[in-house]
């Protein structure tokens, strides 16, 4: 798992870390049962406060992305597969939105866009 913190965005630190962990889970970099680093170790590596990591883990647990067991650690959980699937769909939709925006600003028509999509899809 890689977490890169940006000093120049306005997004709060805990939010950045949380989002990147969520991304990793949704992309499948982290799967069910994978352990997350210890709070203190994670804080040391990122040079952030343990209170921040604590908050990240708490919110991730509330939203169903992880479960934590006292004394053992925090683990990725798949208790909300539908939620995850929806989120994944939402990521694709988001990217499509961005793509459409960019295309529109460059005056690329819908037909051109579809054609490009067909070609690129086959390439994989």
């Amino acid at each position, binding site marked *: 798992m890689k977490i890169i913190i940006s000093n120049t965005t306005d997004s709060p630190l805990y939010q950045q870390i949380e989002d990147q962990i969520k991304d990793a889970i949704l992309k499948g970099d982290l799967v069910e049962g994978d352990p997350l680093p210890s709070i203190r170790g994670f804080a040391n590596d990122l040079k*952030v406060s343990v209170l921040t990591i604590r908050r990240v883990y708490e919110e991730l647990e509330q939203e169903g992305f992880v479960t934590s067991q006292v004394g053992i650690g925090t683990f990725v959980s798949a208790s909300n597969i539908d939620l995850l699937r929806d989120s994944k769909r939402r990521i694709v939709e988001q990217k499509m939105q961005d793509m459409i925006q960019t295309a529109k600003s460059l005056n690329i028509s819908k037909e051109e866009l579809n054609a490009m999509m067909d070609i690129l899809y086959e390439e994989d």
Partner: protein
Amino acid sequence: MDNILEVSGLNKSYRDFSLKNVTFSLPEGCITGFIGVNGAGKTTTLRSVLGLTNKDSGRIKLFGIDMERHECELKNRVGVVLDDGCFYDELTMAEMKDIIAPAYTEWSERNYRNNMSRFSLNPRQKINTLSKGMRIKFALALALSHKAELLIMDEPTGGLDPLIRSQFLAILADYMNEGGRGVFFSTHITSDLDKIADVLIMIDRGKIVFQEDKDTLLDSYRKVKGDAKALNGDIRGFFSNIEVTGLGFTGITNQMSKVRKCMPDIVAERPTIEDIMLGNIEGGGK
């Protein structure tokens, strides 16, 4: 999360200086940095917490227990590092240890020997032949050898070279790996705290300025750079610390949204603790 140290309403007057109603608490499991300029009251506060000076008023609780009634038992659970001059220099480290060790009921000779070899210290060496870095390591070796749950340190990294400082911070991080502990250290070398602190408490002229989670603090302030020509009286008011040169301005603000509205053409980044500290003291620059 319990508080490992609670100070409420601490007042102490000297002729030229006084602590006024100092109140703060250290959460358990955190490294707390105590910052302020020289003369702000850090050492006075620490001395009051350690029972070295008599306070005029106020209450101090360690591990939830009142200091006044259980001073000895509580001191047993605290490791103390008071910068580098707190030894009888003419003695060897072993002799100094023989003075300090019997005070603690939980003293572990084995931990002490481990610490001394981990820090590459020879106990038979005289203390006045040690470099500053070695003295601090020795002080740490002593503080870590009696199963202390809280480390209280007064400016431990002053005058140390960057290598020793990073070793020192690594030792602290290692100490904190076990739960239920805390570290409280005063310093004006804020770059160390950028790396390792969890909570920050700032004192200025005898009064507590803020107590905050480090990241919340760093998130609430921004270091802004932009065109000096765009500054006017109102906008200046959003900044607590401004530096203007012929090429532009740099300022610290905690009202980022307002600044963005008034000045769309700026670069903003997270500040350092030093920036925030300067922004919170008079004379920090405006």
